[in-house]
């Protein structure tokens, strides 16, 4: 059975939320992406794996606006888009959690969730004096955390630096998933975490999917990938070597495809 034959049950009828066609990106004479295509469907976890230099981070950067592809097409919900900056991708509902955890340690959980999109008080206090609606933001932060099913963050007034690694990752994921985003991209979310905390984050990924939010997961950790992913996109030498599923292939198969020892 070849991997490309497999289609998740409902993908034939559903439109991909995020679609990339023949993305090419070169850096001088180095070819980062050599015509890569990718589909992300609603309610799925798509893992992107690949060896170092296979082009997975270039691919992700093109999807999230951190790099502009030389050629190729991107569509969000069927609409063609051109991302020049990360803000452009964010404006289309594509939120990224970066590997180095983009949270501000001294600020509390609620402030971090609203960082860069603070809300002001209604009326003259907010309009004229630009006073922040701290209470309102805390209340909404709690609501969002409850909606996303994140139970590890009880107190939204705690500074993030007082939290554990897993809880910090939860803050970063919550910020990406909150406030009407369409796609969450997680770059190595478990790389710096212990076993228990990794499991919390993986559970969070499953919860997001179960709430209908599609997730792109970049990871080196095969057990984690096979644990949560619905489909696995394997990058090799700037191309998509195969798209497999945890059911169709084993971890050994995936590694073999990744390293070129086998084809799907």
């Amino acid at each position, binding site marked *: 059975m070849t991997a490309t034959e497999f289609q998740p049950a409902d993908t034939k009828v559903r439109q991909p939320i995020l679609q990339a066609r023949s993305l090419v990106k070169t850096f001088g004479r180095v070819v980062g992406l050599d015509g890569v295509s990718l589909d992300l469907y609603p309610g799925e976890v798509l893992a992107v794996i690949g060896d170092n230099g296979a082009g997975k981070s270039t691919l992700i950067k093109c999807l999230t606006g951190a790099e502009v592809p030389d050629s190729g097409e991107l569509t969000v919900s069927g609409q063609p888009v051109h991302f020049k900056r*990360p*803000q452009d991708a*964010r404006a289309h509902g594509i939120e*990224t959690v*970066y590997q*180095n*955890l*983009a*949270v*501000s*340690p*001294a*600020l509390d959980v609620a*402030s*971090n969730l609203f*960082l*860069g*999109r*603070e809300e*002001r008080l209604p009326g003259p206090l907010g309009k004229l*004096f*630009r*006073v*922040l609606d*701290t209470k309102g933001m805390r209340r909404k932060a709690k609501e969002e955390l409850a909606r996303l099913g994140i139970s590890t963050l*009880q*107190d939204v007034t705690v500074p993030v*630096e*007082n*939290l*554990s690694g897993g809880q910090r990752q939860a803050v970063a994921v919550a*910020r990406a998933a909150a406030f009407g985003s369409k796609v969450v991209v997680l770059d190595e979310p478990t790389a710096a975490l212990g076993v228990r905390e990794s499991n919390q984050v993986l559970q969070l990924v499953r919860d997001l999917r179960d709430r209908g939010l599609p997730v792109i997961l970049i990871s080196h950790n095969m057990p984690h990938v096979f644990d949560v992913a619905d489909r696995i996109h394997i990058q090799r030498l700037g191309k998509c070597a195969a798209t497999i599923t945890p059911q169709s292939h084993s971890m050994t198969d995936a590694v073999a495809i990744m390293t070129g020892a086998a084809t799907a």
Partner: protein
Amino acid sequence: MTQQQTAGPPTGVADLAEEFLDRQTPLSRIRNILHRYPALSPAIVLLVSVIVFGLLNDRFLRVENLSLITQQVAVVGTLAIAQTLIILTAGIDLSVGAVMILSSMVVAQLAVNNGVPAPLALLAGLLVGLGAGALNGFLVTRFRLPPFIVTLGTLNIFIALTLLYSNGATVRGSAMPGMLTWTGSTFLLGPVRISTGVVLMLLLYIAVAFILGKTAWGRHVYAVGDDKEAARLAGIAVNRVLMSVYLAAGAVLAVGAWIQIGRTNAASPNTGVDLNLDSITAVVIGGTSLFGGRGSIWGTLLGALIVGVFRNGLSLAGLDVLYQTLAVGILIILAVSIDQWIRKVKS
């Protein structure tokens, strides 16, 4: 109450964990509290030093003396506001004193030698402050130079400009229009004599405390100082925040120039070089971290008052100026050590 403690189970796992963390040692609990309220340690130091100096000398706690301390603190206290804003972004400004003197010389010269009306002269002083801030901010954001180096350079540039512009001559307050020396005038509030300059300084503190604590801009200043990259990834225009901080600092320095003219009843190109370092001293003693992202503007006011109290108290105790400097030096090192210790609060 006791029943609850013995019989009642904790309300949740999180509470239990939190209590357990808090109960590690009394010392770490103190550290957690100091960490949460950065203005607390300078407040304690100020209170203790006021009590000690009050016991050492009867004259110290007299109303006239306390009023004098506030007047002595007004200029450094104002410069320290600008310094706090910049240090919160993990920067440092070595040129605050030089900018202030340049601004005061421009104001005084324009008003006295060129016959410019006082309000316009003050406006020109404000423009000098903003221009200096813009230059510092431009070099920091566009050329990505460390603020320390940028302001070390501009410090010398501003000193040279001041001397060139003024020919090294002092402008006396008696020759100036009344509006320029208005900041040196005093009024009685009950038994306390208060100078207009001190009121102006306090108003600036209130305004900056409000902006830092209650607006998105204030939060972004902290976020940029805390982790620049994280702030950028969160969608904050880091360079714009930095630029606005240097501009705001420049505006504050121009007000400082006005207060300085009133306080010394003159505009002199040869004073105020110490003020660069004194402002940093006030900020550091006030508990604001030199690594950025942590601190409070009220801590800075307390820090400036602590330095004022030490200088005044030691001189009332009959000690030489040398010992005041020695004491300030020890204070700085103590303050930074405490900051380092407090910052170790991490899970």
